[in-house]
Every structure is written in C-alpha cells, then in structure tokens.
C-alpha cells in the first residue's frame, strides 16, 4: 500500500489481534484511509459496481444450485420449476440471468474507461492484464451458465462453440470429444459445465483479489492521467477513500441497482432469447443461432473471416481472429507507444478511440444479424462486409493506430498536477 499505515487499534482486543493477524489494518489501509486521487469521475465507480455484481451472482447462483438438476432430462424442467414453484425462485432466477448482463455492461464500461484514460500504461500493466484474465474467466463462466437451462439456444450455442475447438489442427477432434465427454453435447457435457460454472466464480473472486492488490500498489489512475505527487503534496492531490469514494461508489451502485431492478422485476426476459423457452432438441437447429448480447462483437469477428489465409482455412482463421481480439488486450500496454495516459490530451487519438467504440458496438450489431442480410436495406452492402470492415478497424486500432499515434501525435499541454487540474489553475 502506498504510504505508511495510519491505523491505530483502539481497544485491547484490536491491539491483541493487530499483533497477530493485522486484518483490520489491511482493511483500513485498503478501503478507509487509502489515498485516492481527488478528481475521479463516475467512470471510476464501475469497479465497485462489478464487485457488488460478483457477490450478487455468487449468492443467487448458490441458491439456484439448491434447486437446479444438472441432467439432460430434468434441467429444463427444473429451471421452469424454479421460475414457477420455488418460493421467490422467479425473482432469484431473474436476478441471476439479468445479473449476468448487468455484470457485462459494467465490465465493458470499466474496460472502455481503461482504454480512454490509459489505465493500462506503466506502472499498471499487471493490473490491466489481471483484468483481462478476469474478463476471460467471466466469458467462460457466462457461456457455461447459459448452457445450464438446456433450452434450444443453450444447446445449440454449446454445439457451435465447442465445434470451434475442432478447428485446431490434428488434435481438434480429440479435444472436442474430451470436452463433450461423449460423441456430442449431452449429459456429460451438461454435468461438467455445471461443476465448472460453480467453480469459476470463486476463481474470479481470487483474481479480483490480485487485481485490487495490483491496484493498491500504484494507486488509482485518474482522468488527467498524472500520478498523485509524493510527500507533503500527496494530501493536495488525494482524498481518503472513506468517506469520499465509499459514498460516491455507493451512490453509483444504488443508481445502477435501480436500473437492474427495472429489468429484474418488469422486463425479466427482454435480454433472453425466445428459443431458449423450447427444450433442447438435438435434431432441430433454430433458424438463427445467436449468442447472448455480450458475445455478439466476437461472434461477428468469428464470422468475418470467410476466406482462407495461406495454410489457415476460413474456420480456423475465424477462431484465431476471435481469440486474437481478446489476446491482443494482453499486449496492449506495449502496443500503445504514447507516454500520455489520458485521451483528454491526445487530440487525434481520441477521435480514433471514439470510432473504436462505434466499431465495437457495430460489431455487436453485425453479430446479431444474418451475415447475408443487407445493412439498412442497402442492396449489396451485406452485414458480412460491414463486419469485415469493423474487424479490420478493431485490429488496426491496436496494431497500427496506437503504435503510430504515440510517435506522430503532438499531445496537448497537461496540467502541472491533479491539484492544479481540480482548481483549474493549470
């Protein structure tokens, strides 16, 4: 933690405990008297929101597991029973299903915040990489969780995604059979997905611990991208986490939970898919298999590769592009050559960033559509082509724009300190 500890045990018991297990001191230094830049805006509240949603998902998930039956013959009915017969099951199931979506909304805003304000740059590379690890774990957890209700989209989503593995040269088929535990997605697959879906959130919680640890070494970034000054000036640049940011985070969490409640109670199925109210049927494929909304941009990238690239066939190429779209985030700290963290002071790059956000949303739109349909009815302009263009931009942003802009762009003048930025005396 930055700076010496200010915790002073007050009672005999806390003094006794502090010399044996300084856990109150750890909490105090991390969440009470933790010096936090005084200029954080509301984009910095999503970390706290995410922590709340991890807890919501784990608590509702443990409860659902008390009533859910991981069997291909009973899984679908057991979820319907939870929704209809179990006391408050309708609410808890809705919280869990919609909680996943709200978890992803928050994580995407959290990630875009990091991209805009350069939160991934030195000395926070490990913090960023741990975040990408959490995101990958979230994706695996959400995918397996979506299979559990054993509806048509559950089943066919599992078929499509597990078939991606078969694109791996030579050993793909063997790995796929190993994942399935049979000759197709079936009982063995459902049972192991349930086991892993229960396990992974606790792994996520562990990596979140590392993420917060890595955050508390350098401290928070902030909108102007300057480090808080050390020594006596530190107090001018920072505020104690409590009460300033506990209150700000709590307010944001409450607002976010209010929107969450609108979905849980009034629009419980809006984010779901009608086909998932039909029980899984291995003999009938739904007309359009679409993943949950939070995977759509990557689904569009997967489908954008429709051509062979040298020895790599289109199918393997699509899989590599999709995983590459996430893997590239791991090396982002070394792709961005600019020393300026915040896009506020990068007049050109912030426009490229703006279009990157549009591209990510546009890829989501492409992922939801049939690739052979026309964009806004414009004959000839297929969603496939839009998806290919946006995929190209997605990769170009990381591989060309960020490395080049750091060299050619002349950043705007930055304030002298966080204090100067807040007081407007820059």
């Amino acid at each position, binding site marked *: 933690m930055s700076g010496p500890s200010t915790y002073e045990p007050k009672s005999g018991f806390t003094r006794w405990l502090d010399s044996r297990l300084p856990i109150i001191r750890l909490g105090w230094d991390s969440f009470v008297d933790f010096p936090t830049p005084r200029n954080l805006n509301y984009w910095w509240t999503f970390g706290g929101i995410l922590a709340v949603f991890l807890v919501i998902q784990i608590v509702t998930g443990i409860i659902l597991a008390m009533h859910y039956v991981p069997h291909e013959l009973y899984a679908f009915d057991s979820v319907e029973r939870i929704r209809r017969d179990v006391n408050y099951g309708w609410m808890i199931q809705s919280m869990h299903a919609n909680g996943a979506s709200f978890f992803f909304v928050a994580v995407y805003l959290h990630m875009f915040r990091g991209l805009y304000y350069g939160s991934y740059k030195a000395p926070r590379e490990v913090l960023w990489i741990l975040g990408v690890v959490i995101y990958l774990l979230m994706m695996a957890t959400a995918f397996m969780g979506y299979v559990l209700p054993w509806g048509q989209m559950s089943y066919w989503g599992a*078929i*499509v995604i597990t078939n991606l593995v078969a694109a791996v040269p030579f050993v793909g088929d063997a790995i796929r059979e190993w994942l399935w535990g*049979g000759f*197709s997605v079936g009982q063995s697959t459902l049972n192991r997905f349930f086991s892993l879906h229960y396990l992974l959130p606790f792994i996520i919680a562990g990596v979140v611990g590392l993420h917060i640890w890595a955050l508390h070494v350098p401290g928070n970034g902030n909108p102007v991208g300057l480090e808080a000054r050390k020594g006596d000036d530190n107090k001018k640049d920072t505020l104690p986490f409590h009460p300033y940011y506990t209150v700000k985070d709590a307010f944001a969490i409450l607002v976010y939970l209010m929107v969450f409640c609108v979905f849980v109670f009034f629009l419980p199925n809006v984010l779901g898919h009608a086909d998932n109210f039909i029980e899984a049927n*291995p003999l009938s494929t739904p007309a359009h*298999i679409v993943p949950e909304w939070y995977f759509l941009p990557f689904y569009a990238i997967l489908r954008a590769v429709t051509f062979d690239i040298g020895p790599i066939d289109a199918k393997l190429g699509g899989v590599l592009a999709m995983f590459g779209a996430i893997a590239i985030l791991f090396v982002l700290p070394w792709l961005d050559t600019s020393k300026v963290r915040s896009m506020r002071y990068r007049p050109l790059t912030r426009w490229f960033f703006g279009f990157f956000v549009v591209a990510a949303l546009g890829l989501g739109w492409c992922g939801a559509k049939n690739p052979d349909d026309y964009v806004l009815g414009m004959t000839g302009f297929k969603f496939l082509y839009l998806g290919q263009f946006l995929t190209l931009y997605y990769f170009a942003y990381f591989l060309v724009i960020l490395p080049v802009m750091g060299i050619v762009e002349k950043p705007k003048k930055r304030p002298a300190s966080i204090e100067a930025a807040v007081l407007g005396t820059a």
Partner: protein
Amino acid sequence: MTEANGALGEDGQEPSRRDFIYIAAGGMAAVGGGLVVWPFIDQMNPAADTLALGSIRVDVSQLLPGSEMTVMWRGAPVFIRHRTEEEIAEARNVELSDLPDQDARNENAGMEGVPAIDANRVLRSEFLIVKGNCTHLGCVPTSQETNAGGEYDAWYCPCHGSHYDKSARIRRGPAPENLPVPDYFFETEAVVKLGLSDDESAIAGWTVA
C-alpha cells in the same frame, strides 16, 4: 560424465554426481507428476457406458425411394436417405475437381482418405447414410424433404449457408468438409447397423471404387 565426452559446465567445472542426481530426481518428479495428472484429465473423455452405447440398428425396409429419415446415434443425428435413380445419377455426374473437399470422409475401415466420388460414400448406392451435423459448426442442415435443400436440392445448413449435394458433399459455403459417412453395414437386407466392432468391419463389404 566420463572425461571422454565430458563437456564442462558454465562454471568450468565438470558435472558432478550431485548434478546428475539433481536432474534425475527432477526428471522423475516431472514424469511422476504427469502420471498423477493424467487420470484427472482422462476422466473427462467418454466413459465406458457412453462408448458401449455406440451401436444401433435401424430398419430401413419401410423407407421408400425419394424419402429419408433422421435417427439419433451417439447423441447426434444421422441422415438415412433412400435415393432415387435420378439422385444417384446426379451424385455420380460430378467431377472430382468440382469438389471443395476431395476426401470421401468415410469412417469405415479401409476407406481413409479415398477420393470423394459418390461410390466411395455409399455401401449400396440407393442408401446414402451420413452424419447430420454440418462440418462448419455443427448445426443440423435442412433437407430437400422440406423443400429447403439449398442450391443442390439436397441439404443446406441455414446457420452459415453451407450447401451440400446429393452425396452430402460440401459444394459451397464455409463448411470445410463433406458430411462424414459413419461406420455401418447391412446386417440383413433390411437392417443397418451403425457403429461396428472390428469383426463386423471386416465383413462389412466396403471397397474403394
């Protein structure tokens, strides 16, 4: 190490007995670790009862020419089509060079890697039997039975637009391979057995055309 082939270590010293013991112990630990881990990985592979359910028998005597049936085998669909003379002729009137995938994808013994001509994909030319999951991402293609057979009026995968022909070979679209032919033989004139033992494979009657 003997002096005859004794390379010197980084510090200019000859490797000692201790170095040997160190490497040998480390190697044993790695092998032992692998042996311990393997059961925990292999438990996810198909279990014995899953493998034992690997065979089924299907009566095809009621299947009229020009119609087809879909049976569940190993948790996935298999298409069995009784083809008409016209369909057989159409399937055989295709140049090998017109096929994106020129491997017959026939999983029967002795049929590995044979050319994808129609005769290499059927045991009796009137019965075409193929696995019913698109080789792209596993959707079940729609069929000419429901007037949704695609460009070749045979099978079409609606998920990402793969067109298969009268021999269930990929002709256009993202699917990389022909629909595979499972291992089967005609136990009697009317009964097809899917999933063969080694003894049955030996008498199944598959020959390369």
